[in-house]
């Protein structure tokens, strides 16, 4: 779902960069006021964690593979603004180190992956959802990102939205399910073990 450079048209690039980076500036402003020194290395390690679980791929039919995103999970643990900053940092590192995603398309990738996941995490925290809700919301966060990605490709290249959307959903339904199931199980284990980082001050 990481869109590389060369795929999006100029108006779509302008719009997605405005929303993606605009959200990042908002989260940074919020963190500027509320961030505590001891949480900074933890956020850095969470970036490395997010980056690492992105590299765990599961073989699928036909030689393809699926991998986890974990953005909703991170946003549930750290809160939406911190989750947004952590996922943006992970996306930046992925782009700079592995060319997953592009430079001009970074705004679109932040919008599709970080924003959807952070909103999902915020929603779970807002309704005080348990592990089941976390899984369902993680699934829908990925699917929403896939939907946005399809709309961006359709607006840039034309063609049939139905075709683009159905192909993208088919390609990403399994990773979305995987994200939902694994996220809910992790939240379940964390809750069982009563680990104190579920009590991290969520920003």
């Amino acid at each position, binding site marked *: 779902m*990481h*869109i*590389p*450079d*060369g*795929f*999006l048209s*100029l108006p779509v*690039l302008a719009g997605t960069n405005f929303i993606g980076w605009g959200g990042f500036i908002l989260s*940074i402003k919020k*963190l*500027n006021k509320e961030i505590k*020194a*001891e949480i*900074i*290395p*933890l*956020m*850095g*390690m*969470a*970036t*490395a*964690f997010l*980056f*690492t679980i992105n*590299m*765990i*791929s*599961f*073989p699928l039919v036909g030689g393809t593979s699926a991998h986890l995103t974990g953005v909703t999970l991170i946003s549930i643990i750290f809160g939406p603004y911190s989750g947004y*900053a952590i996922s943006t*940092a*992970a996306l*930046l*590192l992925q782009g*700079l*180190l*592995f*060319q997953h995603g*592009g*430079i*001009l398309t970074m705004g679109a990738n932040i919008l599709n992956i970080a924003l959807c996941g952070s909103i999902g995490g915020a929603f779970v925290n807002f309704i005080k959802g348990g592990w089941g809700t976390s899984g369902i919301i993680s699934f829908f966060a990925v699917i929403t990102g896939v939907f946005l990605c399809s709309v961006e*490709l359709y607006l840039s*290249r*034309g*063609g*049939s939205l139905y*075709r*683009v959307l159905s*192909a993208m959903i088919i*390609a990403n339904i399994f990773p979305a399910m995987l994200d939902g*199931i*694994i996220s809910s*199980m*992790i939240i379940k*284990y*964390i809750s069982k073990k009563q*680990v104190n*980082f579920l009590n991290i001050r969520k920003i």
Partner: protein
Amino acid sequence: MKHESIDRYSSLDSTLHRFSPSIKFYLTLILLFILSLHLPLIVSLVIIICSLILILLSGIPLTFVIKRLILLLPFSIFVLIMHPHNTLNLFMNIIASLLITLLFLITTSLNKIFFEMRMRGVPDYFLLILGVGYRYFFLLIDITEKMFNSWKLMGGELKRLRFNSVSKIITFILFRTIKRSEAVYRTMLLSGFNNGTS
């Protein structure tokens, strides 16, 4: 889980490597901007040829570049299938954009990029998050690889997709992450860290 980062060639010493990162960044942006205007095929071809010449002059093996392009091709093929009109122009446009981005990333080290970001007002604590993320990613990936290997040795197979076991492994990595971050924070305090401002 094999990883081959782009920045392995960023420490080479060529004219392009020594070029100012900010100028390289703005030139990359301008070229990507030009390519997103969907100009005639000849523009993409000129950019592809120039990029390849610059890559060769920078001492980067062409096989490495081709491997990177092949890795990125599935997404391109998907988009091309969805849009059968003007396919060659679109394909060349995509290849040119990928090469331009690769050329910038391959010849600029992350440290230089972080320095430029700091000069442009990105908060220190965000750069610290990026720095810690970069430093510990390779460590975490080794830990993860070892854990999956020992799991396989005990009879587990990734192909069988046992969600329960995979979730336990990932939760354990998360615990290790938290534990490590406490040690990182203590080390940072000892070296004079003051809320990301020093």
